[in-house]
């Protein structure tokens, strides 16, 4: 059998493939950035205002800071969760199940690993930006600007990458939209509530505190608070390490789940 002349096989995680998927996301984002920005920023801001001023009228200070400042830094993690896990979960499902977008992309020289990675990178970037909104709103309500605030986009990005991969992973395993209800009710809501966003974890029972320590959202909350309010300490490196480890592990599982879903 005579076959055509060939060139070298292509590698993994190539920049042109990642760029191609990212360009698609950016171009698409230009058509829906208003609604996306609205939902990703207004919702955490409402939490901030409702809890900040609602509970704030009952709880004046926590750890020496006004409650609105405590919540303002905590809801950064909420904004990250809302702008990463949820869009990743629903967006991924829609793209492979209804729009068949991934079929089109995988017919080009892009593999599933690159597709998942680029999607997560883009969502993480959005989370890095949207995550800062509650903090900026809190500044308007008395949060003192600090140099550590410049680290917040980076913290939000790192946490956002992990949560984006989490959303993609769930979409990869889901058989229908209804499956997401279990994840939202049984996983995301409890994690959201025991992240230390609205109250310190040290007021909770011991077992809840232990659970909190394996909650990536909690580490995101603590890192932001340390960067903005309390000052960074060496244990924050462990928190960063935890977020990075969470992101890496979930990233690989997300790739596995999506490969099973997209390649039969």
């Amino acid at each position, binding site marked *: 059998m005579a076959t*055509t002349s060939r060139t070298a*096989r*292509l590698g993994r995680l190539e920049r042109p493939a990642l760029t191609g998927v990212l360009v698609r996301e950016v171009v*698409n984002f230009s*058509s829906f950035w208003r609604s996306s920005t609205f939902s990703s920023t207004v919702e955490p801001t409402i939490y901030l205002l409702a809890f900040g001023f609602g509970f704030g009228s009952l709880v004046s200070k926590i750890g020496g800071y006004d409650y609105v400042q405590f919540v303002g830094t905590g809801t950064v993690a909420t904004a990250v969760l809302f702008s990463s896990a949820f869009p990743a979960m629903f967006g991924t499902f829609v793209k492979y199940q209804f729009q068949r977008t991934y*079929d089109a992309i995988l017919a080009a020289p892009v593999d599933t690993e690159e597709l998942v990675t680029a999607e997560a990178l883009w969502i993480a970037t959005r989370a890095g930006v949207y995550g800062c909104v509650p903090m900026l709103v809190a500044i308007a309500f008395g949060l003192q600007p600090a140099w550590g605030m410049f680290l917040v986009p980076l913290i939000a990005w790192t946490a956002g990458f992990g949560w984006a991969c989490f959303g993609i992973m769930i979409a990869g395993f889901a058989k229908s939209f209804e499956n997401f209800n279990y994840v939202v009710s049984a996983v995301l809501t409890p994690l959201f509530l025991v992240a230390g966003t609205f109250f310190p974890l040290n007021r909770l029972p011991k077992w809840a505190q232990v659970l909190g320590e394996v909650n990536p959202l909690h580490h995101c909350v603590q890192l932001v608070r340390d960067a903005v309010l309390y000052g960074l300490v060496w244990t924050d490196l462990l928190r960063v390490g935890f977020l990075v480890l969470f992101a890496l592990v979930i990233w690989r599982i997300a790739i596995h789940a999506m490969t099973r879903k997209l*390649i039969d």
Partner: protein
Amino acid sequence: MSAELAISLRGAVKRYGPITAVNHLDLEVPLGTCVGLLGPNGAGKSTTMRLLTAQSIADEGEIEVLGFRLPEESKAARAQCGVSPQLDNLDTTLTVQQNLLVFAHLYRIARADRAEAIERALKMANLVERRDSRVDKLSGGMRRRLLIARALIHRPRLVLLDEPTVGLDPQVRQELWALIDKLRSEGTTILMSTHYIEEAQRLADTVLIMSHGSAVAAGRPSELVLQHAGHEVLEVYGPPARLREVEAEAGAAGLRTRRTGTSISILGIDANGDHSFEGDRRPANLEDVFVLLTGEEIA
């Protein structure tokens, strides 16, 4: 076959649980030719297309595309292929031009060449005037042309067209045939799946007839017709009882028949001059061949 091959499948098998979608399929597509996969829905055409982009992984067999072994080297093969899917997967909230821009990036067209590639694709698809239209505002025919233009934006050596005209009205189908014919004449290698007899007969150099995941015949359309159905077919019309009689008589005379609803077609009539059947003669076609070989009517 001495020509260089764009596609080579040998003994490809793809199973989905108890269903064998592709069953020991052999297929060779020489460079510069247009090969049609002809078969009804469920024959395994789309699965074969997915095997060629490694979106499905064969359970058995060997597959090479443009000299690259699949699935290991599929990414390199896909860089030189264009794929127009059966189901529309355009980004509907983007404009025509934005869709092409995205795929210019995905197919790694250099920045300096990107604008020219998009212009060329727009012209080829006759969508220059609609470049700024959102895809969800386009007609079905325009969307189908855009899908093909998207597949061709990087000047691929091989184009996979999965049911390129399915669901389109006859006029739009003619437009797309002209587009595919132009590609053919420019020497692009094309593998096209279809369940339209006329499409395969008109566009394909070689046709592979598929049924239940297997190839039942392959060859030039005219040769397949001549080999299996002869030059002419006699259409005999009449009430059901008469058609049953004719069918029995033809069978006794060693002639092959196919039922076509209100008539019965007697094939290979030109080679059997001494018969007593009366009816309308017509040229034999690929549909006759298909029905004869598979026992199925094609949609």
